[in-house]
């Protein structure tokens, strides 16, 4: 059954590829992309490659050809098999089998996509919420939270740029340290293509993911087996990419299976004690839980007495902090009433004046006052009580 479908597909492609510019190619692409049986059959051949030895090689070669084809739909068709390919690949390198064809295919996908124009973005700017954007205007007030990195961003550049570290495959050979990163990159590409892929393949992808994370972890009852299957070595980043696929699946055709798979991944992340993967699994799980709630949240009129961060007023400080002049000592001795009157006069002038820095220039040896709705903060305390009085007068 499987053999038949796959051989037919191979033969048809051979036939079509003779003339790459004919309309036949796009017809072929159209038909294979919607053919669910074919998808399952090829997945079957890939994952059971021992049984389908003769077909396997051809399948890999053909997928490679399809991926490089100028016809976009053929590329999408080939992209569907990325999870299965990665599963087979990781399985084979574990058992230290030679899998040059498969490795070349994965590398080809990676290099093709990183050089193509419509590949996934390689970097982005982290928006700075203190600068206006198409969604907001920061207004005159900054947030009450300024983190270290905010300061960094404000100091150095306004917008921080993030780039995805590129995987350099300069050698002809792919060595051990590059294998898992390569898989991660290819899966990243797969995730980028996900929205365009046929939804029918979603359950199959989930099953592959499930195999990747659970294989070799013995459940009750499987102890009787003489040789348990190997555990596939993963990296936390690859797992995070897989979580994204699962997140997508929740909304695209397989919610129950997706949540089940998510649970399995979460167990694996815990087993490996990968904090980053645990973080993401927790996030998705919690998010799905919270979105089960009805869309319409009842609008309740909250009472005024609820305290939120918004209850604390954040206010922009004046452009220049007004500084109250400390009068020279001789003046002070001469009489406190005069001083306070003068200060009050100054203060009223200041509140009208829009150029506090001119005032600031006149002052030396002074006390800093931040007026905020009557609150006074004196940073340097004045020497005499009289002066304090004068400051209070200023504040009012």
């Amino acid at each position, binding site marked *: 059954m499987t053999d038949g479908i796959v051989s037919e597909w191979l033969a048809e492609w051979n036939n079509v590829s003779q003339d790459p510019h004919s309309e036949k190619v796009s017809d072929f692409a159209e038909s294979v992309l919607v053919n669910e049986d074919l998808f399952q059959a090829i997945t079957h051949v890939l994952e059971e490659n021992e049984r389908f030895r003769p077909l396997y090689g051809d399948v890999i070669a053909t997928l490679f050809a399809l991926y490089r084809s100028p016809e976009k739909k053929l590329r999408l068709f080939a992209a569907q098999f990325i999870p299965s390919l990665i599963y087979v690949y990781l399985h084979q390198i574990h058992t230290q089998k030679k899998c040059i064809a498969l490795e070349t295919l994965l590398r080809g996908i990676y290099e093709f996509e990183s050089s193509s124009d419509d590949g996934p973005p390689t970097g982005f700017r982290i928006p700075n919420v203190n600068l206006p954007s198409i969604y907001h205007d920061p207004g005159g007030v900054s947030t009450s939270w300024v983190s270290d990195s905010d300061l960094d961003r404000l100091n150095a550049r306004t917008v921080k740029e993030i780039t995805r570290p590129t995987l350099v495959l300069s050698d002809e050979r792919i060595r051990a340290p*590059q294998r898992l990163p390569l898989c991660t990159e290819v899966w*990243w590409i797969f995730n980028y293509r996900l929205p365009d892929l046929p939804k029918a393949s979603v359950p199959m992808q989930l099953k592959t993911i499930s195999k990747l994370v659970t294989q070799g972890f013995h459940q009750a009852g499987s102890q009787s087996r003489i040789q348990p299957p190997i555990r596939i070595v993963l*990296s936390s980043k690859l797992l995070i990419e897989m979580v994204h696929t699962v997140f997508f699946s929740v909304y695209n055709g397989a919610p129950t299976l997706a949540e089940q798979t998510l649970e399995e991944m979460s167990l694996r992340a815990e087993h490996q004690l990968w904090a980053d993967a645990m*973080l993401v699994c*927790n996030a998705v799980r919690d998010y799905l839980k919270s979105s089960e709630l009805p869309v319409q949240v009842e609008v309740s009129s909250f009472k005024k007495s609820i305290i939120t961060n918004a209850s604390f007023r954040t206010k922009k400080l004046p452009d220049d902090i007004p500084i109250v002049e400390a009068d020279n000592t001789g003046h002070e001795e001469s009489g406190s009433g005069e001083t306070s009157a003068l200060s009050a006069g100054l203060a009223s002038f200041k509140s009208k004046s829009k150029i506090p820095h001119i005032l600031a220039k006149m002052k030396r040896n002074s006390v800093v006052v931040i007026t905020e709705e009557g609150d006074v903060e004196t940073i340097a305390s004045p020497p005499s009580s009289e002066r304090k009085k004068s400051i209070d007068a200023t504040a009012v």
Partner: protein
Amino acid sequence: MAQKGVKNTSGLNRPDNEVEAKREAGEWKRVLDLLEPIKGKGSSQAEPLMNFLYGESKLESWLEDHQPTEKHISKAKSALLDVKKTILLCLSQSGDASGLQTDAHILLAKIYYASALYEEALEELDRSRFEQIETVAYTVRNYQLMAEAYAMKAHCIEKVGRSWKGTSGKSERERRLEAIRCYQKAADLGVSYFQAHEKLLLGSTPNATLASSSGSSHSPHPLYGIPPNGEKKRCSSLLDFSIRRGPVLLMEDGQVEEALKRIHWLLRTHETQLFAPIRLHLSRRLAELLLQNKWRPALSPPGDSLGKPKYYTGGKIFNPVNPWEDIFLILLLAEIMVVREGVLNQTPEFVEARKLANLNASSIFDLLAMAAARWNQYTLINESLEKALKFSFEECHIWTQYGLTFHASGVNNRRSCQTLTEAAKLSKRPTSLLLLAAQENYSRLRVNEGLDLVELAKTKEQGGSQRLMSKVLLYEGIGHFLKSYEQSTTQERTKELDDALSALQSAAELDPMDYLVLHWLARTYAYAHNSNEAFAVAVKALRAFPFHLPTLQLIVLLLSAQKNNYDALAVVEEALDEYPEHLGFLQLKAALEEKTSGPETALGTLKQMLIIWKQLFDDGNLFMRSESPESRHPGGTGTGTLQLPSPTDKESVSMASFRGGTSIAGSSTNTATFAGQLRADAALSEIASSMSVHGSLMQLIHASDLAWSAQINIWLTLTDMYLKLEQVTQASSSLEEAAQISPNHPDVLFYRGQVAESQGDYKEARRAYESGVAVCPTHIKSLQSLALMQHYFGSHRLAEKTLQDALKLDPYDYFTWYNLGKVLEILDENSEAGDCMATALEIESIVPILPYSTIPICFD
């Protein structure tokens, strides 16, 4: 419309304006108060208007308290009868020309809608002919009424379904499209209403703002600020619902892109206080959709026109050019909103409000975590979650995530540990969190604290699923193993190793497939000098994970301990084939080559190491390499391929073990030194982390430290080789290179002694060894050589004492035994000397080429 009506029939003068103003502001109770005294006093001409205003304000103030939802339907039916009568009366009194007709019909529709009589509502809406009105006086109230009319129409179409006669003969799809159209209209008008309302509010309270802020007035910004009167006004649930519903219907219709565009435009409208809750909801929806859909650059929203909302536009504003910028922008803005809205009250009466706010908050943080994790931006999530802590008292999820972000971003200090432990207290699945905290403690050499946490995890696991029991036992084993370093006597050390062994053995029984358990079991066997058992287990570990570097290193060392140097070299060559830049294996290779084919070959390998070091680190930005932690995966990191300072190896431990190991000089087997150095490093990291709030600096220190100590080791190994080749000049110039990096490093001092010795300058050598011991009293190699010098200078008893000190530190150093034998021989204690020599021989036969401590401590 009504506006017109009011102005034309100016029967009542002064109160009229005030009524109008309150009406615009939507303060219906005030309107009622104002109407009360003049009721029935006006001219008959004004009566319809009076009735209208009265009915309207009655209705609106009732609806303010009773949103049209399921549970209010039956109440509405009875309570609104009165109002209905008033409005009907008004309708009958006023003619078509009065301009009250439309408004009155819409109000009637509202009554029907609130009573769940959707068909009647539709009929009323039809009668009002609100859709035919082209030019409306755009007052706040009119915006609101029009928006509500569209919203009701759309909602009623959905509710009534096929039986609505307005759509008889229309297909379901057509009905849905009609509903979508109405929802969109409602949304546009609704947002315009919010904006007009906001403008009105700001205009009406200029005094308040001015007075309070003494000149530096600013608008209460909805994203950051607060409404001027401190009271929170919410928009009606009808508008709220219809604005959200539009995009959902579009999605159901399969028009995903259109839906995205609509949400996008809604979010681009000028911020208002009434819109804020809806904005939050839409932000969340949009981020969720963008995470799983194709992204296109946003089309600019339609330009300003009357009846359309105002949008943020302009050339200089941040405009996302790819999906990630869009997602992050939306989420960061949403984060500001949820942080501001988080309920801080802990009293029971606010439980519901708090729950809702926290739910909103955590969903935003979840999305942020999903997005940021894919770009390795754990510090960003960490900072966001930190803000959430203020309102997340005993919220398990937020605390767990907060703790995990520390770990994920590579921060390891007291704070991160405490957070994890705290999260574990709240969590239903605390084991993994406790183990992570234990791991952090181990890495900072707080082994006892770590073991306590493991113990706690054990209790929890015994009461729970037992799924992670083998991991718990593994960490118990690692804890005891690390503790064995801290012990100064062999007895205590053996005891700890025995404890480690028994824990690891039970772990291996529970999970015979776990390579990490097997690796640690093998390593512990090796430390306990049971190399046969160690070898067997290590092979098993390798079968479970063929590329586990620490296991490979262990195997090489075990082979060399069996004096099977050629096989060991073969394994090294094979490993180097996969990891050509792995300094650890190169170092092993050099050591093995020296044994198998002499120091000349080893020299070549060492030079190669220097070249690789230069490639890896000496690119002018040594600090940049470990800015973000590499992915955690076992057996080496990504592109860098440097095992050495891989941040996953938990900085200090691996650094020390590498430093200790590479120096063949011998601090390697010197466990006391090892622990001592670790302590210093741990202390350093504490200082670093308290100095800088974010953890990156700490990593910088470690990455560069590791790199430099690696270079020291390479130079010193070179020195050693040259000395063996009797090329003293080269030896001393290599030594100078190392000394330039760290002149007081005990290994550097030791080699100074060695060079001096080879030049025959024994006094100088003795001085160097003495300084070495002074810098590091437990430096075994220095002690050994110092003893030899003392011996040469005739102080045999002193030499014996020094050697015995060295033995106390490490009884498994054959060179100490040999020297002791020599000293005792001179002292004519021949039988003891013989014993010592025999012991030396015995030990020498099981000693690996480099100490086992060269293998970095690994948790992966």
